[in-house]
């Protein structure tokens, strides 16, 4: 949308959230829990990690207090939005042996209207990637579709780069590019305020209700320079030139043995990755076999079971499983879904207990 950017004073952030609640949205935002910044239900701006920042390294994550009161002064934590859209576990249907044969009842999904507060460019790109698989493929997942239907995105353009992220390499940030209603760039230098970009009619309507002042050209320049500074100070880079062929053509590269010696196949990377979508289907029944149900649950290609076929696993070695994950994420995802599967959020690097860094692995394979 080509509406001029507006200014949201820090003091009005609470009002923005309140208005969203009044419109019936459930707020999902970053909040401090158990030593990490996670995405959870929040009620007001005081629930946000004000004055907190994160320090991330391969295999390390800790929170630190900031010297200022920045509301969004950190990168991403272990959660991503797949927990609210492609939920970790849900029942699909149940069946009962009735007098008239088998009675099938579909389970309606819980699909509240959600407002994503503080969504980063990488995470929004990840949502779009999952949309392509679960909503826009040959078959749509109606539960996913229902949860995606009524969403209000208040994005945030990152004002500081995380130590493990590389969104600039993947073209997904630090500026939020995918669909959003409003995008905020936090400007701390007094007065503490946010530059607000309008991304949709819904966003414009809310901004109208807030009666925000237009931004000055200085505000706009400052916001741009903040984002540019972030883009130039990324913790990592991933060269994506020819990466699809690079990985597809090197299934026997010795680096796979190298990383296999370190990888624990613990599945952390797949759990924290915002685009990993693999799941399993479970069919269960009661003891009398009178009722049965089917549910879907997140799964990981790092488990032995995942590639089970004819009495054994196709990918029985850790080497084969790591190769599968990385090749899929960065290369064969293009063949399957027309884009990269990686958004450069760096979570897999941070949350790997042995600190495997996929940007380093790719560089080693490139040689």
């Amino acid at each position, binding site marked *: 949308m080509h509406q001029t950017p507006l200014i949201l004073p820090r003091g009005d952030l609470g009002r923005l959230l309140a208005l969203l609640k009044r419109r019936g949205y459930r707020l999902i935002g970053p909040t401090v829990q158990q030593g990490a910044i996670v995405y959870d239900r929040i009620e007001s701006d005081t629930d946000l990690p004000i004055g907190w920042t994160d320090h991330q390294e391969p295999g390390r994550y800790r929170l630190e207090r900031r010297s200022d009161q920045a509301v969004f002064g950190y990168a991403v934590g272990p959660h991503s939005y797949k927990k609210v859209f492609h939920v970790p576990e849900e029942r*699909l*249907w*149940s*069946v009962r*042996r009735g007098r008239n*044969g*088998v009675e*099938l*009842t*579909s*389970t*309606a999904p819980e699909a509240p209207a959600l407002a994503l507060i503080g969504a980063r460019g990488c995470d929004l790109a990840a949502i779009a990637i999952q949309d392509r*698989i*679960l909503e826009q*493929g*040959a*078959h*749509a*997942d*109606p539960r996913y*579709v*229902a949860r995606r239907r009524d969403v209000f995105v208040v994005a945030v353009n990152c004002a500081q780069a995380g130590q493990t992220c590389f969104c600039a390499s993947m073209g997904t940030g630090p500026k939020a590019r995918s669909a959003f209603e409003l995008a905020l760039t936090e400007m701390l230098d007094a007065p503490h305020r946010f530059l607000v970009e309008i991304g949709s009619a819904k966003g414009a309507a809310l901004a109208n209700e807030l009666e925000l002042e237009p931004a000055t050209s200085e505000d706009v320049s400052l916001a741009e320079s903040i984002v540019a500074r972030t883009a130039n100070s990324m913790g990592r880079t991933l060269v994506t030139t020819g990466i699809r062929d690079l990985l*597809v053509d090197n*299934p*026997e590269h010795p680096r796979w043995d190298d990383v296999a010696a370190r990888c624990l196949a613990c599945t952390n990377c797949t759990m924290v990755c915002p685009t990993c*979508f*693999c*799941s*399993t*289907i479970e*069919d*269960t*029944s*009661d003891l009398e*076999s009178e*009722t*049965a149900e*089917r549910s*879907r649950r997140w*799964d990981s*290609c790092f488990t032995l079971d*995942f*590639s*089970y*076929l004819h009495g054994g696993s*196709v*990918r*029985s*070695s850790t*080497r*084969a499983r790591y190769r*599968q994950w990385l*090749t*899929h994420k960065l*290369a*064969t995802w*293009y*063949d*399957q879904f027309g884009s990269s599967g990686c958004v450069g959020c760096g979570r897999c690097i941070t949350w790997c207990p042995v600190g495997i860094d996929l940007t380093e692995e790719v560089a080693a394979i490139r040689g």
Partner: protein
Amino acid sequence: MTVQAAPDPMLPEFLPVDRLVRETHDTFTLSFDTRGRGGFAFTPGQFNMLYAFGVGEVPISISGDPARSGELVHTIRAVGAVTRALERAKKGTSVGVRGPFGTSWPVEQYSGRDIVLIAGGIGLAPLKPVIHQVLKRRREFGRLAVVYGTRTPGDILFKKQLEQWATRRDVELAISVDRGDPGWRGHTGVVTTLLGRVSFDASNAVACLCGPEVMMRFAARELEKLGLPNERIFLSLERNMKCALAHCGRCQLGGTLICRDGAVYRRDRVLRLMATKEL
């Protein structure tokens, strides 16, 4: 609890079993009467996800004649919990059906050509619909050779149907077993030895292979030696499958999702995938 308004491809349709016919000691054919629902359209090579109440779901190729619209037929080998549960079905048992899924043997592309079908073990089931289809439109195609290998004479599927086809002059049927028994007077040896003994013009023929992956690799190499290019060799590949909707990610093989882009593939497109260990 309410029923979904939007179509839910995860919901099975429950159909009552019409007939269960034993083929061999571990393989059986399950038929559904589909006249009540206006038939069940499918193309040769496609599969359904069959659900045994409370036990689970498995992908099973449709093995019936596509032209017989009032029935839906699957031939199943009992090797696990779900297939063994299906084996206990009787007339009237409700079985969940989702489908059809997957790609088909591109029979329309075979017009005017000699066709060689190479089946190994249970692999004859997904190819059987092709035989029905070709025989129904016989003049559209050149020679038809069906080469079928299985473990022992006791494992031969569709005995009556094969006997019937063997009497026809417009199809050449060659059967081999890996291990013969005293009463067996047919060919004993691997199925690839039959390829030199059936007639087809390698310069224009197409081949469809279905069976254990190792057998398909050996047979395809044999066809290569006989002069068939990979663009005219089609195979059916298999991997772990759960959703059949391209949502769960389990059936991927390199850059392809078997439930969506397969199971039928042209050999030149999957050569490297089949040659890579633990892919």
